[in-house]
């Protein structure tokens, strides 16, 4: 069953002089097992949107259904539904607090009142997934780790809850290129192998180009574009309106075309871009320079 947002509107501080509507009539269906990227500039409503996905915020109007259950409900079913969503916030490493890595990751499952063996199994498997060796790191203080490692610990803490849906808000901000690539690869793998439904928020279009199956651009509290990458990345006018920039591959190819190179400007991954350029050079008659 999918996540369904039906006509969701959200207004902060309603009835005060600071009233501000952050979401306007947003309808969106996120299919089971999909990998969706949500992009938008600061203040576009994307973080407000994802906070609706596990009931941190409830809509001012409209409803959010998860596996058919209204997340704003009061009963046990609604509570269980909210638990199916794992949320990795921006800079999640700032939320680490335990004395050891293992204790920090175990905090969530322990609160679910799972038996000790089950907690340990989940901690081990979550750490394996984020590639932190259990024996090496379990007794280490999370505060002695590097930024990239701390972020992996924080993500492991969410994975240990074994959510069905995983929401990541700007997961790669502040990570170095290797850590960024590694994290994106892991997330893609979670999606492919464990069939997790993944929603990730980012304004890094190059990250999105690398992995998303579907792209949603938010602007001014509304969904501006909702399309597969092959369409979304070429919607120039909308990308500009949303205050974003196309992936650098797309911009480069279109500049080459504008300047007279006969290249198919329909690629957005680096591999494809290189192929297109190589083909265009061959057509042109061998080499330039």
């Amino acid at each position, binding site marked *: 069953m999918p996540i369904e947002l039906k006509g969701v509107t959200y207004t902060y501080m309603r009835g005060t002089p600071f009233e501000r509507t952050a979401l306007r009539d947003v309808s969106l269906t996120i299919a089971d097992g999909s990998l969706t990227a949500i992009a938008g*500039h*600061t*203040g576009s409503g994307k973080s407000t949107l994802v906070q609706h996905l596990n009931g941190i915020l409830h809509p001012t109007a409209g409803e959010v259904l998860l596996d058919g259950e209204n997340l704003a409900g009061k009963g046990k079913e609604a509570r269980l539904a909210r638990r199916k969503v794992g949320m990795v916030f921006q800079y999640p490493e700032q939320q680490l607090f335990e004395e050891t890595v293992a204790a920090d990751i175990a905090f969530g499952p322990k609160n679910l009142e799972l038996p000790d063996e089950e907690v340990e199994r989940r901690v081990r498997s979550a750490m394996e997934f984020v590639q932190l060796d259990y024996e090496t790191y379990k007794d280490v203080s999370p505060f002695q780790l*590097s*930024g*990239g490692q701390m972020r992996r610990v924080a993500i492991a803490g969410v994975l240990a809850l074994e959510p069905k849906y995983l929401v990541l808000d700007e997961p790669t*901000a*502040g*990570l*170095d*290129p*290797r*850590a*960024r690539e590694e994290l994106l690869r892991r997330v893609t793998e979670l999606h492919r192998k464990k069939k997790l439904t993944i929603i990730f928020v980012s*304004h890094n*279009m190059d990250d999105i180009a690398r992995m998303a199956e579907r792209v949603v651009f938010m602007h001014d509290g509304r969904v501006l574009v909702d399309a597969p990458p092959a369409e979304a990345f070429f919607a120039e006018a909308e990308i500009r309106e949303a*205050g*974003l*920039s196309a992936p*650098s*591959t797309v*911009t*480069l190819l279109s*500049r*080459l075309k504008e*300047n*007279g*190179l006969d290249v198919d400007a329909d690629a957005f991954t*680096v591999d494809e*871009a*290189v192929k297109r*350029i*190589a083909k*265009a*050079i061959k057509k042109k008659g061998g*080499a*330039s*320079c």
Partner: protein
Amino acid sequence: MAFIEIEDLCFAYPSTRGEKRMVLDHVNLSVEEGEFVALLGTNGSGKSTLAKHLNAILLPTSGVCRVAGIDTRDVTRLWDIRQTVGMVFQNPDNQIIAAIVEDDVAFGPENLGVPSEDIRTRVDGALNSVNMADFQKFAPHLLSGGQKQRVAIAGTLAMQTRCVVLDEPTAMLDPVGRKEVLDTVRRLHQESGITFIYITHFMEEAAAAQRVVVMEDGKIVEDGSPKEIFCKADAMRKRGLDVPLAAEITWRLRKQGVRLSENIVTEEELVVALCR
């Protein structure tokens, strides 16, 4: 004598367990006044630790760090050092303290005891040079990330620092904000001759600098022009870093036997080379 002189600098964070982890390992670096240097390296390579030595937030465990001829260990000159080198950090919300933009920019000079009419001139000048004059009466929390970082830069300009160190100033910003900050730094560098040390994980930003310094495991392992550094795409990748897209594509095309200059780093250069 160079403006920044770092000689054989070592730094180890004090550890409770007794073992010492060297974060900076015999670093030597000199930067001339007016240079624009990008500092690259993976998380944990020592970039931020090095940056914090430049205005005496951290002091060398051994070796020397001199800024404008002042040894940073000289406690009697601490104020001079802080007035020479300003810092802008990653998270704009952690460094803006006042409730009004112009108050925030005035905070530094006020603490220096600058006469109030001079403060007025400095604040106006600083906000003008980061294109934030229209926002002087704004509350900072209503600004975008890029605008907040520009206010933070204005805060250092109002101190009339000769050098500004920016530690991943764009990591939390959207593409528009990133461009605002980088454009501001480039323009200030050209117009004012301020020395900029710019730490980033975005290779496109580093390509805008005059000089790129790469750190790994507490050591400086590369030091050269963006062209010299970024034409070695595979070496950079082995270090866990990246190169700008144009350099990456050039490298891959060359590997396929396409004849292209290895010195292509920017999109502009690649377009020129391919479309001639």
